[in-house]
């Protein structure tokens, strides 16, 4: 199970956006999706925490603040595994472009910042498949905080890392916790070849670069004909 470091063999393409809350990654993912669809490509969008299997447990446990760093990590991994199996791999097999808002790297950054062993959580996710591109939208904590504050009234408990007890003040805790998350993202950038994006740039400037990088990656992507034949050949081969 070392699939996260080896290229996948599905005919589809997997594009991942990563970054802390308020980095603008979801906006960039949405604009990329619009563009790809306008070119007639079949795009499937999926985001973290959307699987039914553990949704209610996560919600309930978050309410009671019962989660420890380890159970937090395991619950999210369960959710991820479920999502990978039902929402990511089937569209990739069908030759679609999958855009994932957050992926395993979120867990590596977030869970390590909470204090679990970085090596443990990497092994935990070793069943995940390697994205064709993983964009990392890098933004200073203060900008992310300002963006979130302008969008909604309050920071969320786990988003601010209040469970870590780094600070009693929620804004200060967010700064300290997300600062550590950023440090963890930086550490894994060379490890997993993350495509670092300057998320302090304007939306359109970033999107231009996102599209250019995506276009280059999609040069060998042929959603019709060729890929389908290849898939059939592979499936036939795997039964031998």
């Amino acid at each position, binding site marked *: *199970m070392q699939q996260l470091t080896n290229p996948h063999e599905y005919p589809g393409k997997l594009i991942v956006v990563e970054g802390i809350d308020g980095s603008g990654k979801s906006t960039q993912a949405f604009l990329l999706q619009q563009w790809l669809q306008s070119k007639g490509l079949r795009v499937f969008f999926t985001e973290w925490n959307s699987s039914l*299997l*553990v949704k*209610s*447990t996560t919600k309930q*446990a978050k309410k009671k603040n*019962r989660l*420890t*760093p*380890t*159970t937090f990590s*395991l*619950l999210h*991994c*369960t959710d991820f*595994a*479920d999502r990978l*199996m039902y929402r990511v791999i089937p569209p990739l097999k069908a030759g679609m472009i999958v855009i994932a808002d957050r992926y395993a790297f979120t867990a590596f950054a977030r869970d390590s910042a*909470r*204090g*679990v*062993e970085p*090596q*443990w959580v990497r*092994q*935990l996710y*070793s*069943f995940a498949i390697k994205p064709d591109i993983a964009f990392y939208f890098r933004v200073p904590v203060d900008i992310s905080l300002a963006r979130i504050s302008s969008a909604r009234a309050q920071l969320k408990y786990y988003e601010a890392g209040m469970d870590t007890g780094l600070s009693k003040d929620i804004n200060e805790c967010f700064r300290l916790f997300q600062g550590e998350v950023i440090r963890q993202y930086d550490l894994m950038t060379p490890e997993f070849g993350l495509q670092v994006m300057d998320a302090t740039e304007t939306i359109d400037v970033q999107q231009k670069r996102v599209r250019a990088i995506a276009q280059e990656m999609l040069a060998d992507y042929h959603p019709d004909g060729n890929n389908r034949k290849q898939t059939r050949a592979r499936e036939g081969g795997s039964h031998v």
Partner: protein
Amino acid sequence: MSGEVTSTKKRFLGLGLPYVDQEHLLGRLIVIEGSDGVGRSTQIRMLRNWLEVQGAGVVETGWTRSQLMSHTIDLAKEGHKMNNVTFNLLYATDFADRLEHELIPALRAGFIVLADRYVYTAFARARVRDTATKWLQNLYGFALQPDLVLYLKARVDTIVNRILASGELDYWEAGMDQNPGFDPYDSLMRYQRKLLREFGKLAKENNFHLINANRNIKSIQLDLRRAIATHLGWTLTDDVLLPNEMAGGAPALATA
């Protein structure tokens, strides 16, 4: 001295819980492993009573009983929508919840924790299902190494008869997910045989203390008490081993 529980240095099976202080876990973690139907819960009830008579504090814990996950696991079982990875992750989450909210606090307070099954159950089940064992061992790397593992070992016919008599045979117990197209009885036999084989290997790899569970309840109980008393450094006198209801009918120690 009987009743006394001296502390041991605890270790983790793998990478552990870096944010948990493992220096002050004073109690002992004693695991009772064994297939379904070997009578674990009866034996644990008697052990608990015996240990408490000796003056030791006891906390019991089971496999898949945490407040956090029981409901989700039941749901997932009903829907059969789990694959091997999510199945194992759900069990591991449940176990981590109990480990951190029940086991570790109890050990810190100096209790003897009697665990009705432990990670080895997950290992055996996963090996039967061909789940990547390396991945699973890393997954449970956060588990504490038990101080003592008592393995109630029984023959497959003993186990299968007890499962059938209990009336609790269901899809998972019969290992139907492993044996599509089999009838429940054949599937059960096949699954339990495989499980026993894997438990046998785990017993060797992890130095389980073997207890022959094909015998009557009292003989098994006496062996369990002897193993625990020896482990705790208690003197093996009849006073220590047979303080209660067992005293009358149990076989004499010298010949048992």
